[in-house]
């Protein structure tokens, strides 16, 4: 089965990001396909490359990045939700005249159309949120 995943909550604050990751991992292990994970609302914080958790804790951001790279999962961050929360990639940082960027290169920013498309193209779209 083809799955799309929607993550609506930030890492470390809310379990949704962990549950979504575990779900994706389990689905892939069972031979299913996870085509895209879309990060919305505070979920965009899952993409901050500047995240520094304590060394004995899971690294939510790197864990997504590794999963994406290993299994070809498209990790998409909503651009509008990201910008209002201070998450920018290099291009957007330049365009907005900011002196830094913080989106992990394993993720890409795009519009909400990518979420609707994930609903259309997959057999299931599974939401993780509050």
């Amino acid at each position, binding site marked *: 089965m083809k799955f799309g995943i*929607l993550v609506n909550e930030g890492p470390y604050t809310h379990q949704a990001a962990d549950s979504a990751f575990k779900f994706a991992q389990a689905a892939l292990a069972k031979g299913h396909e996870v085509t895209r994970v879309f990060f919305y609302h505070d979920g965009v914080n899952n993409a901050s490359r500047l995240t520094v958790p304590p060394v004995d804790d899971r690294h939510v951001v790197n864990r997504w990045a590794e999963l994406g790279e290993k299994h070809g999962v498209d990790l998409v961050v909503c651009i509008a939700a990201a910008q209002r929360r201070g998450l920018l990639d290099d291009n957007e940082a330049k365009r907005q005249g900011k002196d830094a960027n913080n989106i992990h290169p394993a993720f890409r920013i*795009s519009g*909400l*159309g*990518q*979420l609707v498309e994930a609903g*259309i*193209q997959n057999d299931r779209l599974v*939401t993780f949120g509050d």
Partner: protein
Amino acid sequence: MSDDMDMEDGGTIKKFMFVNRKAPYGTIYALEALEVVLISAAFEQDVSMAFVDDGVYQLMKGINSEGTELKNFSKTYRALDGYDIEKLYVEQESLEARGLTEDDLLVDVTVMSAAELAATMAEQDVVISH
């Protein structure tokens, strides 16, 4: 909307239901949920919205958000029919529990029982809940 749109998708039409469960101004969920709903209109899908729990407050007449410095987005709900989003379902039990009736709402809706709404939800291809 400023987001990019990759328009429709090979002619597939799915039934999308956006479920709104949260009050309009305490959190950003209602506002950002509306952004997805508006984008979905560009994909020519069969879109409906359901309002349950505190989500029914999103449709209340006479909201004044001035003192909060939050943008009042009541008018966006009125604009939905211009996007061909006309299926607005409101759960009767949620209205009653809050002392509201259909007359308190700013747009024309279909009020249905929790059981009817559950049956309608079961017919959907994609349910996105905020």
